[in-house]
């Protein structure tokens, strides 16, 4: 099914209505397996049981970045290919990606307290994630507060692309800054290599979170399409009242 086939909002809604229950079921099943494996995973020889936080923190980080990638592709769809649902996709991805980035920061902080002694530490990865969250908040402001949805969406699309170009630069500069200011020890979350007994639960949890993202993304897209329908119907109602 080519992407262009689901350009029609009504047809898209029908597809979502059919697919969503399956996605929800799959998400629940994979989460059940993942949580079971995660909570029963062995203790890390350095960090003890707190390594269990990694099963939340790392997938959240991946999905925070994945959310921005989705927004960037959607931005290209909006600005370059003019796909009708592209801006809906970008707008839907933003709050979900931001939420996962937030989860990444909070779980990272809670992981840092027993491991490093402080709730917040300006290590390269957490700091980059914080800047990512700030960029998300900017895009959210553009998408969700513009009076006219189309205009806000185009502005947000441009910011998504500018962010996509900038994020590697920001990551590079934060890494550089971090090594400059912390020459002593190297903080590496999870140790230098992840043992298979920890890697498998991690991957299952990553899959679970990804399914959750896709499910929520489609659901938010559906809501946004309905919201725009309401808006155009109200506009038409106001027009008729004048006629």
């Amino acid at each position, binding site marked *: 099914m080519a992407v262009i086939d689901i350009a029609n909002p*009504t047809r898209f809604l029908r597809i979502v209505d059919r697919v969503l229950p399956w996605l929800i079921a799959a998400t629940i099943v994979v989460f059940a397996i993942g949580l079971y494996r995660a*909570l*029963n995973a062995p*203790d890390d020889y350095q960090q*003890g*049981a*707190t390594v*269990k*936080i990694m099963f*939340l*923190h790392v997938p*959240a980080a991946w999905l925070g970045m994945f959310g921005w990638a989705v927004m960037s592709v959607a931005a290209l769809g909006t600005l370059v290919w003019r796909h009708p649902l592209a801006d809906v996709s970008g707008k839907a991805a933003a*709050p*979900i990606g931001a*939420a996962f980035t*937030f*989860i990444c920061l*909070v*779980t990272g902080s*809670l*992981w840092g*307290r*027993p491991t490093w002694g402080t709730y917040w530490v300006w290590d390269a990865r957490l700091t980059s994630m914080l800047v990512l969250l700030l960029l998300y908040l900017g895009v959210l402001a553009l998408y969700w507060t513009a009076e006219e949805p189309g205009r806000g969406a185009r502005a947000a699309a441009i910011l998504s692309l500018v962010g996509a170009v900038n994020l590697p630069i920001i990551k590079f500069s934060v890494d550089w800054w971090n090594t400059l200011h912390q020459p002593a020890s190297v903080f590496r979350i999870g140790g230098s290599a992840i043992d298979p007994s920890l890697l498998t639960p991690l991957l299952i949890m990553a899959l679970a979170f990804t399914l*959750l993202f896709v499910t*929520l993304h489609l*659901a*938010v897209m*559906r*809501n946004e399409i*309905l*919201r725009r*329908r*309401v808006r*155009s*119907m*109200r506009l*038409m*109602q106001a027009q*008729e009242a004048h006629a």
Partner: protein
Amino acid sequence: MNLGPHADFIVAAYAVTLFVVAALIAWVLLDYSAQRRILGNLEERGVTRRSRRKG
């Protein structure tokens, strides 16, 4: 399940994650039912969309 000396932090991390995910799901569900309700109201009052008009 022995969560070790830092059990509080592990529990807190899982709790926060659960809370944020639950809040997202709640927002999606509430928004969905709100939009459906409004659309139902509008349709009841006879407001139709352009695509239904043609005919």
